[in-house]
């Protein structure tokens, strides 16, 4: 089954596309894809901003990002077409969090929150914060209306869709009974108190036992201090979530032709569908192809063996045999064909399960991308798609 072709340029050129989200499991090339798409968009006239969460150092350098300063910087060396431009920024999650606090609380209270040890730990080092802050920053950039296209990659979360769940989880938590318990019975309301009356003492007792009086007190202080800004926080999280569901957003799932990455990609596709998030397609990255695909793996291997037999007539190993280069080339080719066939099979499994998902393939590059030239090439390959995926030379 051949997949529908993902027309990258159509998505980029469509002015209604305002946000492109690259998601996928770790190590599949999300950041590279996001940067390549941002660059291509800029060079095709879009005012693009790439928001990256955790770029490899050399990739960041390729876009001129040297520090994590939370401000979109103009990328030099971009061949911009009429009106196009490229900005890029790395997320500083602590600073993003600080800014929310400062924006939502009066100065005294803000200072109190920023100084709370609980807050400091939470905002700088705990897993999960990154997802919230990435979404928050995305919302900020979008609302700023300074760019007409924002390309974002998603954090390398433990669960790939943490970034989708984060805003809702936050809302659920803030509406939760625990908060009301922690912030004091006054907030819990009388009817609720009646129901829980018997259990309440046990609960707070248990909480105290587990957390310890001191930690519970710190947490309570922290939550009470944050209380004033919760409403605004949740509202923003929800509006970002709605933004992601809007037609101006395009989700691109990135995967390599590996079982784990494609399994995760399937999971993404299904979740995005459940959440009614607009999926644009799958980028199948690091696909192995062969210019000599007309020579099958089996024939190549057989030929290599034939040659080895010839060079060792007495069954003895002759060093530096005449055809050593050919043997190496044939064995290497057989392996590559084998790998290519396996990748093809995995890609077909994906398409059988998700026949409507458009696919674009990017062939494996001999070296990692670390300059604009490399990013430009990836962008071109992504859009080139002159052959429909799957219609490769014989053999695979």
């Amino acid at each position, binding site marked *: 089954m051949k997949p529908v072709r993902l027309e990258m340029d159509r998505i980029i050129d469509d002015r209604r596309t305002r946000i492109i989200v690259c998601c996928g499991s770790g*190590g599949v090339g999300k950041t590279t894809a996001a940067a390549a798409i941002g660059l291509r968009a800029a060079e095709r006239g879009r005012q693009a901003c790439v928001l990256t969460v955790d770029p490899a150092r050399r990739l960041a350098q390729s876009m001129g990002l040297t520090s994590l300063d939370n401000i979109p910087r103009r990328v030099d060396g971009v061949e911009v077409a009429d009106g196009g431009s490229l900005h890029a920024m790395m997320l500083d999650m602590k600073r993003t969090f600080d800014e929310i606090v400062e924006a939502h609380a009066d100065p005294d209270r803000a200072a109190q929150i920023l100084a709370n040890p609980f807050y400091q730990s939470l905002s700088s080092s705990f897993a999960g914060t990154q997802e919230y802050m990435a979404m928050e920053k995305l919302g900020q950039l979008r609302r700023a209306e300074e760019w007409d296209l924002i390309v974002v990659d998603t954090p390398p979360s433990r669960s790939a869709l943490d970034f989708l769940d984060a805003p809702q989880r936050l809302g659920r938590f803030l509406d939760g009974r625990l908060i009301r318990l922690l912030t004091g019975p006054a907030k819990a309301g009388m009817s609720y108190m009646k129901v829980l009356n018997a259990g309440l003492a046990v609960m707070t007792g248990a909480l105290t036992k587990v957390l310890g009086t001191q930690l519970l007190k710190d947490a309570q202080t922290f939550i009470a201090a944050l209380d004033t800004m919760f409403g605004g926080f949740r509202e923003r999280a929800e509006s970002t979530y709605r933004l992601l569901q809007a037609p101006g957003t395009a989700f691109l799932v990135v995967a390599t032709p590996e079982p784990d990455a494609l399994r995760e990609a399937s999971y993404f596709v299904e979740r995005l569908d459940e959440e009614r998030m607009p999926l644009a397609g799958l980028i199948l990255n690091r696909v192995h192809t062969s210019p000599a695909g007309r020579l099958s793996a089996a024939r190549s291997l057989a030929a290599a063996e034939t040659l080895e037999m010839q060079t060792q007539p007495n069954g003895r190993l002759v060093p530096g045999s005449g055809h050593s280069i050919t043997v190496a080339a044939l064995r290497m080719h057989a392996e590559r064909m084998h790998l290519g066939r396996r990748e093809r099979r995995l890609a077909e499994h994906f398409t059988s399960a998700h026949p409507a998902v458009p696919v674009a393939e990017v062939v494996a590059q001999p070296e990692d991308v670390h300059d604009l030239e490399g990013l430009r090439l990836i962008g071109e390959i992504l859009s080139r798609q002159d052959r429909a995926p799957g219609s490769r030379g014989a053999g695979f």
Partner: protein
Amino acid sequence: MNPWRTRDTDWDGVRLHVVTGKGGTGKTTVAAAMALALAAAGRKVLLIEVEGRQGIARLFDVPPLPYSERKVAIGLGADGAGQGGDVYALAVDPEGALLDYLEMFYNLRRTGKALTRLGVMDFATTIAPGLADLLVTGKATEAARRRVDSRDGSPHVYHTVVMDAPPTGRIGRFLNVSTEVSGLAKVGPIKTHADTVAKVIRSPQTVVHFVTTLEEMPVQETLDGIAELRELTGGAIRPGGIIVNMARPAMLEGAELAAAASGSLDVTELAVGLKAAGIGDNHGLAADLMTELREHARQVLLQNRERDELRAAGRPLYELPMITDEIDLAGLYQLAGALRRQGAA
């Protein structure tokens, strides 16, 4: 023969092997292979998964793992000493670990369930996500510390615990969370718990292995990860070995390799070879194969450079071959054998 006899490996005395690696480098596969290799005659090994992806169940072709220790395989047979010991597996999730913790230390299981309904788990994963990491590392260290079977005999005493840990980018924070929470809590039961966890993680009984492929980004992340671990913990959390996974075999060496990479090999020579093998050079097949060979040679040279960079880190280096087909149990045993032959387990 005493089954608990110490074999001579690079990590004798280590009871908790933490396996990390950049996404896509195959850390789950390597962790599983390591568990098989460590489970020598009579030795019981626990393989722990912490990210809820059920990767272990898939590798061993068993149903999804619950929050309980299940036997999933028999270890690699010791050299001439018969069958290997048992490999158990456990998928730890923060909620299960919290209930476990409440029961184990406070006998509060029912209260724990009520707390879950109240949103305590949301508290753990939303506002204090560090608590989730603490609970997970807590469970792993608890398994590594066990010395006697408990009252009802259900948990096991393990010779070694292998943890399929979060990726390299998160490993420092993940392992250091106990110290951080300990600093945050100052006193109280959480602090006591965090201290116990930190004590195991920061002892010579725990090492962190880094899985990488011979590509630029994973190698860089490995080196960064080792440095971060050192910075974050002042050397208290020990790096173990570097395990190079999916190394592609080099088809050429020395002068031929260099010539292939620079494109100075003779295409006609290849065409002659093809002819000798009974393959006609139709439509420039020899030239196409030469292009492919050149790419291969450049990749091999890149791999060699990356390997040298890894060597400079001064950690023991192990290398596992590329398995082209999807990894099954046979493939895992093959990798386990390679780890053992190189002294990693």
